[in-house]
Every structure is written in structure tokens, then in C-alpha cells.
């Protein structure tokens, strides 16, 4: 008797609840990305500034250590001083890592499923389109949190740990809230945008190029228009509403009570950002289907 006749049998156990399906997609995507050597290398490179900052925090809390290396602790005290703007600058610095990671992890998330027609397979299982989307988004979100929000929050905890001052955390709840908010201002729109673009193509390269075009081309036009526009006619800063990069640039300092670069109320930027995320949602709703309907 062939082997297969002895093996296949009916399943008599129970099935897990469907609400967990998105976690399977997320877990598989994260492991799939982690298996690639080059990806691990880029991820560690993106976390390099964090490692440097950990050393800085250690030194700031243990200035005496500098004596061993022949430095005068008093001369570097000001350089190593840590205040709220430090975290702001760190988040802005890590936003570049976010940009890299969102392209690396997000550009092929849905494009590869469209290329290999795996979308039909996914949706033929007892999962909803929302499960699929949430699972895929979680992959990009995981790595973006890993390079921006989590390191920054870790630094807050490390400051308290190195200085043995746990009151630092309770006394800076607002700081933690600001870090989380600013991270999401970057992470959510970038994830929504890359997923929407990835869902419109079958190629990782095309998705990457489209993402860069959407991000950088409006920025270039905005810069040109601002340079050319006569300020007496209208405030040229309004053109920055058309550039995602400029929107993020305007909203970030406001969250950390820093001076905003453009002379337009932040509410407009928040509104445009919401519209961008909403449009991405509409695109995803249209694209994530088991059947391509040609009208």
C-alpha cells in the first residue's frame, strides 16, 4: 500500500479562533525578513545610533569612568547633558532609519502576494481582508517600532536605570507620551503609504520607486514654488501641505514644543496627513481582493 494511503486522515481536534489569524501573517512575515542576512545587517546599522546613545547615557551617569581614559569629566559634562530635546533629536535622526526600514520591509509585502497570486490563497482561508491587511501592516510596524519608538523609550528607561532614579520615569510621563505620539506620526503614514503602493504593483522595485517619487517629488516642487512665489500674494508655506516630508517636518517639533519651521497652523498638516492615510485605506480596500474585476 502506498505511503500516502496510510497517512492522510480526518482531523478530529478543534480549530483555533479566527481572530488570531493576523498574528500568523505577522509572525511569518517578521521571520521571513529576519532570515535574510542583509536585512539583519541593515537593521543593526539602523540601531547603531541607539547603541552609541546607550554608551552616552552610561557615561553621562558615570562620569568618573572618563578618568580612566584621561578625560576631565567636567569638560564633557555639558556635551553629555540629556534633556527633552535630546529625545526629539534622536527620534528625528531615527526617522531616516524608519524611511529605510519601511522600504525594505513594506515594498514587497503585498506586491509579492500579487506577483505570485497568493492573495487568492490567503483570502480562500477563513480570514477576512482586514485580518490580512492587519497582519501585513504589523510586519512593517514591528520593524519601524524597533528602530524608532522602542529605542527612544528604552533610552528613557536606561537613563533612569543608570542614574538609579526611577522617579525620572514617573516625572516624565508627558515625555513618554510625546515619544509615542511622534513615532506614530511617522510610522503610521509611512506604513499606510508603503502598503497602498505595494498593493498597486507586483514588483518590489516599482513599489520602492513609487514610494520615493511620492515622498520626494512633491517636496522638490514645493521647494521650487516656495522660492518662486511672491509672499505678498499668499503665504508660500501653504505649499508645504502638498509634501509628506514637510508635513512630518512641521508636526514633529510641535509635539515636542519646539519651534515649527513653517508659518501655517499645525491643524492643517494634521488634516492633510489624515487625508493621506484615509486615501491609502481606500486604495487598500480596492486592491486587496481575491478577484481582480476588470470593468
Amino acid at each position, binding site marked *: 500500500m502506498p505511503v500516502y494511503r496510510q497517512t*492522510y486522515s480526518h482531523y478530529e481536534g478543534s*480549530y483555533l479562533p*479566527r481572530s488570531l*489569524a493576523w498574528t500568523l501573517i505577522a509572525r*511569518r512575515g517578521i521571520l521571513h525578513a529576519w532570515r535574510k542576512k542583509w536585512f539583519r545587517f541593515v537593521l543593526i546599522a539602523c540601531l547603531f545610533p541607539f547603541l552609541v546613545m546607550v554608551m552616552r547615557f552610561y557615561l553621562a551617569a558615570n562620569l568618573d569612568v572618563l578618568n580612566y581614559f584621561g578625560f576631565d569629566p567636567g569638560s564633557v559634562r555639558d556635551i553629555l547633558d540629556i534633556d527633552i530635546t535630546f529625545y526629539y533629536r534622536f527620534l528625528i535622526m531615527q526617522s531616516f532609519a524608519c524611511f529605510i526600514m519601511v522600504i525594505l520591509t513594506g515594498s514587497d509585502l503585498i506586491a509579492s502576494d500579487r506577483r505570485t497570486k497568493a492573495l487568492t490563497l490567503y483570502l480562500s482561508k*477563513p480570514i477576512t481582508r482586514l485580518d490580512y491587511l492587519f497582519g501585513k501592516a504589523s510586519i512593517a510596524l514591528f520593524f519601524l517600532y524597533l528602530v524608532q519608538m522602542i529605542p527612544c523609550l528604552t533610552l528613557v528607561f536606561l537613563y533612569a536605570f543608570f542614574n538609579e532614579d526611577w522617579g525620572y520615569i514617573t516625572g516624565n510621563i508627558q515625555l513618554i507620551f510625546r515619544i509615542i505620539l511622534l513615532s506614530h506620526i511617522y510610522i503610521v503614514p509611512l506604513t499606510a503609504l508603503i502598503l497602498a503602493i505595494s498593493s498597486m504593483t507586483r514588483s518590489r522595485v516599482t513599489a520602492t520607486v513609487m514610494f520615493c517619487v511620492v515622498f520626494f517629488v512633491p517636496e522638490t516642487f514645493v521647494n521650487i514654488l516656495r522660492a518662486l512665489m511672491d509672499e505678498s500674494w499668499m503665504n508660500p508655506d501653504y505649499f508645504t501641505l502638498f509634501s509628506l516630508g514637510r508635513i512630518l517636518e512641521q508636526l514633529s517639533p510641535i509635539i515636542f514644543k519646539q519651534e515649527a519651521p513653517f508659518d501655517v497652523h499645525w491643524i492643517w498638516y494634521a488634516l492633510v496627513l489624515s487625508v493621506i492615510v484615509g486615501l491609502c485605506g481606500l486604495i487598500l480596500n480596492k486592491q486587496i481582493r*481575491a478577484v481582480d474585476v476588470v470593468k
Partner: protein
Amino acid sequence: MNGFPNTYKSINHSLFQNLMDSTSIFQIDHLIVNLGRKTILRDISAEMPQGAVGLLGPNGAGKSTLLKTMMGFLKPDKGQIKVLGRDPRREGAQVRQRIGYMPEEDTYMPGMTAVEFVSYCGMLCGLPRNEAMLRAHQALHYCGLGEARYRTVDTYSTGMRQRIKLAQALVHDPDLLFLDEPTNGLDPQGRKSMLDLIQEITRQKNISVILSSHLLHDVETVCDYVLVLFQGSVAASGRIQDLKQMAQSSYIIRIKGDMETFIDALREQGLECQPSRDSRIQVRMKEKLGTDVIFRIAHESGAQIRHMAKEEMTLKEVFASAIQQSNGDAAASEG
């Protein structure tokens, strides 16, 4: 008119009334599905019992659309549909939990070994991790991919991809399998072995199958029931054996006497005759006409009937007749 009796579809409907009830795998009632501006399924009604059901029709007949509507991928514009007693529009996930779908397209998840792929599909269907892995090995062995289960799916040949699509559809132990053109791209040997496997699934494992194909041979080999679609409408439906018998019957006759006179006399009565080289005549009977007509004509033309046997139609002929009649119906309604 040459072809099926006009009452064909209604005969089948009443024929199945006693087979249905709770054991039907799907029930469709006046279903209309539009894709964009085009109507793909036009007011179709059908009901099929458990077992192997063939969904037959030429390319573009609406087979895949019907399958996708049953899966809940497409929303009907009108009519009712129930699969395994549930409405896929409202309970899509519950329906898909009990269904295994083997799509027509070459589809896979890149970068995974076969066993990872199949177990992942099992987990998506709700199997616990260990159970999914165990059943993935079983399903791959069962589908003849035991030796290749640690290879990445990207490196598989067309035949192997067909088999792995079947394995992923089977892994969670579905009650019903949707197989969309399962023999596409396979060589004759691969086709035979795939059809044997599907037969084994329906007969030994008691899993119902809906086999969508434009290949009559595949449907005839595997299925007990058939739903013939043509231009989005049901051309015929029912048990294949019954359809063959109900279709216009033909007889093979050998006579002693003047064959030409006999054939002319038959043709005068409106019967279709086809003489062959070995002195035999194939006579296709008209609806509600008994064999006594042939004997009477033979008597009148002075011929002796030495041999007379009923010839069973093949599914190909049934299919051709159904399509022919559907064409005629469409032309009549346009006229």
C-alpha cells in the same frame, strides 16, 4: 430541433428534489452575478448532492465566477446561494473554514519550503501549530510530494505546483474541495495521476469535490454529477448517467436488405441516420418516439433487422447537445 428535450432542465430539478435536503453541498436560486458592466452568471439555479460534482463549460462560461461566488469572493447581484447550508455573503469565513480551494492560477507563497507552505495554510485555517505541521507532512505524502517536501515551492515544476495546491487545500480536512482546472498544464501521465488522486479523495476519504473544468474527460472520469454552464446560464445539470440516458438516444442497427431504401425511409420520418462502412447504421431517435417506428419502417421498406442495440451517449455528446440547445434558446430569445 436536434439536441436535448426542452424539458431537460426541469426534469433534472425534480429528479434532485429527493436527493437534496440537508445533504446538498450547494443550492443556488436565480443567481445573477455581474462583474463591472458584464453579466457573468445569468439567473442560474441549481442544487447538487454530496459527492463529486463537475462544473463543466467552455472557457468564459462562468465556472470560475460561480466558484468564487460560492467562496464569498464575489457578491451576487440577485438571487440566493448556500454552500454547505451557509450563505457565503454573510458567513464567508465559516464557509471557507469547511472548504479547501485549489485555484486555477499558478499560485504559491514565495520563499517557503513545501511543508512550511502547507502547514502555514493549515494554521491560517485554524489548525494548532504542531497539528498543522503534522498534517502538512501527511497531505504532502498523500499528494505524492513526500520526497520533495523540504524543497522551496519556487523550484517546483508545474505538475508539482498543482499537487501542492491540492495539498494546501486538503490540509485542514475540509468537507468540500473546490478544484479549479486541476489538470491545467499537466502531461497525460500527470493528468491521470491527478485525476486518480481526486477520485481517491472523493471515494475513500468522503470529501465532496466540485471540479471545474473545460475538459470533458476529467469530469467524466471523476464526477458523478455535472452542472454544465454555457454563456453564464445552466445548459444542463444532473447525474451524468441520467443525463446520458435522458439525452436523445441513438441505436446501432444492422439489416438484411437494401440499405439505401431503408435509410431513405428513416430520413423521410425525420430520423437522423449515419451509415458506416461495416454495413451498420446509427439512428438517432427523436423525442418521445419509440423503437416500433424503426420496425415499422423496416417492414414497409422490405428490410430485416438483424441487430439493434441502444448506443449510450458520451458526456461529450451530452455536452455538445446541451450547448447546442442553449445556443438555440439564446438565438430564439434574441429573435
